């Protein structure tokens, strides 16, 4: 890395080398049986330079002396974007716990046993179901060095459990799933088994959704599939800078329900999205985005912050060494006070939405979303009575989060990028086929 940096500095004023190495082992169950085992070793190196005020960049894999890399970066810099930032020079970062020695040491046999346990529990509950499970552990090392003396290095461990069930009767198909991940070993599959069995119980009977405006409870998965994408887009500093975000001129204003709180927090211990710094070497921080319904701020990387006259919030993310783009690290929606059961019993007629399909295809900037209910249930007289199908739901994120009926008191992680309680919303258009 140091060699690449030195070589780049011969031609460019500023340079940065970003290296990620990882090794992952996965144990996979297909159709109720152990079927695959995979190990993936990978190294990627990205070079970003600022030459004559412009950004150049190139990536490669494996071991390299950097000759081609520097040549490629120099060629791209001729057409590159004008750099509006200086690379950070810090080398001291907040301490964030993201590595546990125990994680890479979990024995393959224990991973197999976890899979067997999940599959056994779900197949015992529902005859004819086919389970697909994935148990994975990995270790990743990130190193960033730059020409201004900036230096960051951290190691992260990762463990995940995922379970999916397919239940097919004729052309009627039900898909249920849950997953958990952490930097520490997850040796108890019970929460996942419980969630999947709960989904199977609720979907056991069929119910018919009417075509009308109804209240809807979004489960954490439902929120991730329907509501977060428009918010992430509107809170992106770049979209704000371009004048396209509907929240751009609303800082300090009450736009959402007073009980709605959202922040980005990559500093939570042992969460897979946590890290001491972002992929540009900017220190991680907790960034409040919406507090008591009031817009507090937006997410920035170095380049956009430079353009907009703001400070980077440490949200420069690079997937496998691509140029940094702004994305949330870990979104956290604060829990409220209502129990899930209380929300359900409050509804005479409505839906619980666990997964909406296709919701990102609408007018995202305007906050509109609509989609097909892939997994959802009907509520009648305060009780969940069965699964709805052939049902479309549409709404507007800004309208439904302005006046929230209730926010659940229990938050959970959906993947590693969102922690949220269920949210009970009013007034969604539901249309159902014949």
């Amino acid at each position: 890395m140091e060699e690449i940096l030195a070589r780049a500095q011969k031609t460019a004023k500023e340079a940065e080398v970003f290296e990620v190495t990882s090794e992952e082992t996965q144990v996979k169950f297909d159709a109720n049986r152990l079927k695959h085992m995979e190990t993936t070793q990978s190294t990627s190196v990205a070079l970003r330079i600022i030459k004559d005020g412009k950004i150049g960049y190139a990536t490669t894999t494996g071991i390299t002396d950097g000759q081609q890399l520097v040549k490629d970066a120099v060629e791209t810099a001729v057409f590159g974007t004008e750099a509006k930032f200086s690379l950070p020079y810090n080398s001291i970062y907040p301490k964030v716990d993201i590595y546990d020695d125990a994680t890479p040491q979990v024995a393959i046999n224990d991973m197999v046993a976890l899979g067997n346990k999940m599959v056994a529990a779900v197949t015992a509950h529902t005859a004819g179901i086919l389970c697909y499970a994935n148990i994975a552990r990995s270790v990743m090392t990130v190193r960033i060095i730059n020409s201004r003396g900036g230096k960051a290095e951290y190691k992260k461990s990762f463990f995940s459990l995922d379970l999916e069930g397919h239940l097919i009767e004729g052309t009627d198909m039900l898909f249920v799933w849950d997953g958990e991940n952490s930097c520490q070993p997850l040796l108890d599959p019970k929460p996942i088994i419980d969630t999947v069995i709960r989904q199977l119980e609720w979907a056991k009977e069929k119910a018919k959704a009417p075509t009308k405006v109804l209240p809807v409870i979004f489960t954490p998965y439902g929120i991730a599939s329907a509501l977060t994408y428009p918010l992430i887009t509107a809170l992106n500093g770049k979209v704000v800078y371009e004048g396209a975000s509907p929240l751009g001129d609303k800082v300090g204003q009450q736009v959402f329900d007073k009980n709605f709180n959202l922040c980005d927090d990559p500093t939570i211990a042992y969460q897979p999205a946590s890290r001491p710094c972002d992929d540009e070497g900017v220190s991680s921080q907790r960034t409040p985005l919406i507090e008591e319904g009031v817009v507090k701020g937006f997410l920035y990387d170095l380049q956009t912050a430079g353009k907009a006259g703001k400070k980077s919030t440490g949200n420069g993310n690079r997937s496998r060494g691509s140029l940094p783009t702004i994305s949330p690290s870990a979104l956290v929606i604060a829990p409220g006070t209502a129990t899930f059961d209380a929300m359900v019993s409050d509804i005479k007629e409505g839906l619980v939405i666990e997964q909406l399909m296709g919701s990102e295809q609408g007018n995202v900037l305007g906050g509109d979303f609509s989609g097909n209910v892939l997994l959802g249930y009907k509520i009648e007289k305060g009780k969940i009575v069965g699964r709805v199908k052939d049902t479309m739901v549409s709404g507007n994120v800004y309208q439904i989060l302005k006046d929230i009926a209730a926010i659940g008191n229990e938050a959970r992680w959906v993947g590693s990028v969102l922690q949220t309680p269920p949210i009970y919303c009013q007034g969604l258009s539901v249309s159902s086929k014949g």
Partner: protein
Amino acid sequence: MPNIEEIARSMTGELKQDKADYLEAHFEESQTSHITYRGQDIESVGRSTASGGNVRALVRGGWGFTSFNDFAGLKKRVALAIEQAKTTGADLSLLAPIESAQEVVTSGVKQNPVTIPLKKKKLLLDEYNEIIWGTPGIKTSDIGYSDSCKKVIFLNSEGSLISQERADVSIRLTAIAAKDSEVQQVGISVGSRGNFEDISHLQEKAKEIAQKAVALLDAPQVKGGEYTVVLDPVLAGVFVHEAFGHLSESDFIFENERMREVMVLGKQFGVENLNIVDSAVEPGLRGSFKYDDEGTRAVKTYLIREGKLVGRLHSRETAAKMNEKPTGNARAVNYRFPPIVRMTNTYIEPDKMSFEDMIADIKEGIYAKNWYGGTTSMEMFTFSAGEAYMIRNGKIAESIRPVMLTGNVFNTLKNIDAIGNDLDMNQGGGCGKNGQAPLPVSNGSPHIRIRHCLIGGK
């Protein structure tokens, strides 16, 4: 860069060992370049090179797989894959037999698109961008260009040694119009099997999308509900890929008794003149290749013939387990992943009806064109058209806001009641499955008509 040919040759002996029922390896090297614009400015321009490999082992029906881009200690990698397969397997290893092959397949392009100077690529993109920005009412644009060239060497324990090269070029142009608080966009995606020339004449198209985006600002939104819908070749191609193609992938079927009943050969899926094909042997298409990533020779596979299910897509394992012939559909997006069952070029064969005849008896319906997004869950699908028009009394009438179509795959296939005579292949797509994306595919269709199609809306 490591010399992958030397590495591959040095591994032939290692793979012949009898410690596994089957062993294979892939070694890959690739170069790419990309330019993206956001508005009038370049947002990102970059080049990359990559190399890596993998080893896959089969023991008693269990698979072990290890991928790497550090080529040191390859013997250990082979041992690891075998060890994993042994831990996993508890059954019989079944692979449909294929002929082993030794062949070098070149990319067939006159010039590797990656080596074309960025300057030339930028000039072309600037030209397109100026056309879009020169259209009154346009607020901004989005342009993405990328190209790649890669070589994959495949070898297995049955003596195959195949080197295949492919080049790829793709471009997406999006014009975004705005007025007051309304924002509308129209885009096109064009791809080519590595021929830069193929994407160099889109000036007219760029103008067209810009004008359409502006026109959409004043278009009304249609009321949700059931309509007779006519799909253009692009959208019908996406439909056949998303809604039917994924159901034909046998890895979802072969170990699933109930799914096998749903997808039993001979079952009627649609009208008599419905024929659906997946074929990697069509020359010049982005989904084409000579050998798949298991070294199986590509063929043309009828999935539906005269409305009946007659075939499906296989890897060697799924073919063996279902007692069918391998179809050469095992593909991996790159060396980081094992090959899985994927589509190639998927299309509805043309029939006889003209577009005019197809809409002639529609009193009120929707003509949905172009593609914006789409997804499927096997049974259900949703996808969004990029443009839409009302059909009134047998004629194309006013432009409406783009619509989202949704429904049950099986019912919708049965509801296709007319198939046009104007097959067109769309080369702009990339397919995603099990985290492997974007895999170059193409899909196509003539115009088709679907009765009772659910359209989303307020």
